[in-house]
């Protein structure tokens, strides 16, 4: 048998890389099918949420009525907690708090790096790879892994129903490949597709460049996290709106909230489940960063928020 020279080894490496790329492309396509299924299919089921010693059972439902998607989540144990989302917005009822109502954002998917046109970008920070198959809620599923290439973001394991592409289980993984947070269907009933197509948002053929609000700069954001949305919302101060900026690497996302005036807020870090938050006063304004990313990432984002006024003075 002839020895394999360096050229043979290089060819083998190329073949491996090609196979991996093809496998990744197939995995990305499966994830796109998952995204479509979540929008298109009507379903009901019971979810179990697990994070540390937090265990909750939830009832989830997704219905489409005349092309309008309606979703709901209801906690089945502990204090009453619920979330409902319609075309108008999200209403959330949590323990010991006033109901939270957030308007549905008029944002199209074209403002985001979705999977259609962002395979290269996603691959820059994640390795997308099939991880075999499993059985969840009595149904066969294909497991897709999204493995982060650094510790600035979490990884994911999606267990996709082989029949419908719905995610039957989602694991959020840390840098040590340990699950931080898990959501799993224990039972699911797929009610089929709506006869009317589901609206996915306002039509937009134009990608609008997004910039920070006047007077603010974002510098040295963590690798891959680009500004993808800016909006103004009602804040604690009834006179001044609260600036809301959204950063995303195509999968993970981080929000920056900037409040004018003397609004009080978070000073230091906080955590709930896999979500991390950090807050500080920046040039007389309350800045809060929150996202489902490691604590070091929200810290890095906060440090990159600068007031143009204070920057000009230095």
């Amino acid at each position: 048998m002839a020895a394999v020279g360096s050229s043979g080894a290089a060819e083998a490496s190329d073949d491996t890389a090609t196979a991996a790329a093809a496998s990744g492309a197939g995995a990305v396509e499966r994830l796109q099918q998952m995204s479509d299924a979540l929008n298109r299919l009507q379903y009901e089921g019971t979810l179990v949420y697990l994070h540390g010693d937090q265990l909750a059972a939830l009832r989830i439902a997704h219905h489409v009525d005349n092309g309008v998607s309606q979703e709901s989540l209801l906690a089945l144990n502990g204090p009453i907690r619920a979330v409902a989302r319609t075309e108008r917005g999200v209403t959330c009822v949590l323990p010991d708090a006033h109901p939270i109502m957030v308007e549905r954002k008029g944002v199209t998917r074209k403002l985001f790096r979705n999977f259609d046109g962002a395979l290269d970008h996603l691959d820059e920070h994640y390795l997308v790879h099939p991880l075999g198959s499993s059985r969840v809620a009595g149904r066969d599923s294909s497991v897709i892994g999204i493995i982060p290439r650094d510790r600035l973001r979490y990884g994911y394991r999606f267990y996709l129903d082989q029949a419908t592409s719905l995610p039957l289980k989602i694991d959020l993984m840390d840098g040590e490949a340990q699950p931080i947070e898990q959501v799993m269907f224990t039972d699911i009933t797929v009610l089929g597709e709506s006869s009317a197509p589901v609206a996915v948002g306002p039509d937009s053929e134009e990608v609008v460049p997004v910039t920070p609000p006047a007077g603010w700069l974002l510098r040295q954001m963590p690798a891959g996290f680009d500004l993808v949305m800016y909006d103004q919302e009602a804040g604690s101060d009834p006179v001044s709106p609260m600036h809301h900026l959204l950063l995303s690497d195509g999968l993970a996302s981080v929000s920056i909230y900037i409040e004018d005036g003397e609004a009080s807020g978070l000073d230091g870090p906080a955590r709930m489940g896999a979500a991390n938050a950090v807050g500080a006063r920046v040039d007389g304004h309350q800045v809060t960063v929150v996202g489902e990313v490691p604590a070091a990432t929200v810290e890095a984002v906060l440090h990159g928020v600068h007031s143009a006024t204070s920057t000009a003075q230095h």
Partner: protein
Amino acid sequence: MTHEQRQRLSAVADDAAGPGQAHTMLAEVEQSPALRGCWERYHLIGNVLRGEPINGEYRAIADRVRMVIEHERRPEVQGFVDHVRRWLARMDGRPGLLLPAYGGAAAAALALGIVSFGLIPQTDRGGSTTVGLASVDEPAPADDLSGLGLASLTDGAPRSRWQATSPALSSKLDRMLVGHRESASASGIKGFIPYAAVVGNGVR
């Protein structure tokens, strides 16, 4: 102890007592050390007549168990007993506890099962301790679980969802997280399911 009591006790030991007599007799045995001694002798005599082995460890076992129970009734044990009574009282649907409608029947059945099979020491009018069934006949007193390490068992106790924040700040962060989730969900990959983390947290 009278001659009549010894005769009735002998009848019970020989399984020859009339309806209701055994229950009455056993109640008297429970209250009288003399009758308990007589009861033991009757059984020892029966063991001997039947050629059965006799184990000295079983002598006066009722008194020994009672002494152990009294010795073991430390404050924290009694505190837990009181906690269970309050827990049972709240499971009958009284205000203060949110129960899903479909779970009310299950909770009631559980409470009945605990009451039916639970044996919690009670102090009778004579001052001695007897073992009987727990009963819930009083409204649940104000909750005071400090020092028992059982506060986490209380459903609905105020608790900040975000670690290291006050409840007021936690509410503000919740609103920010919901706004963040809604903006991020427009990317569509995970849809509505990530809201499970918003709703699922804060419960043990």
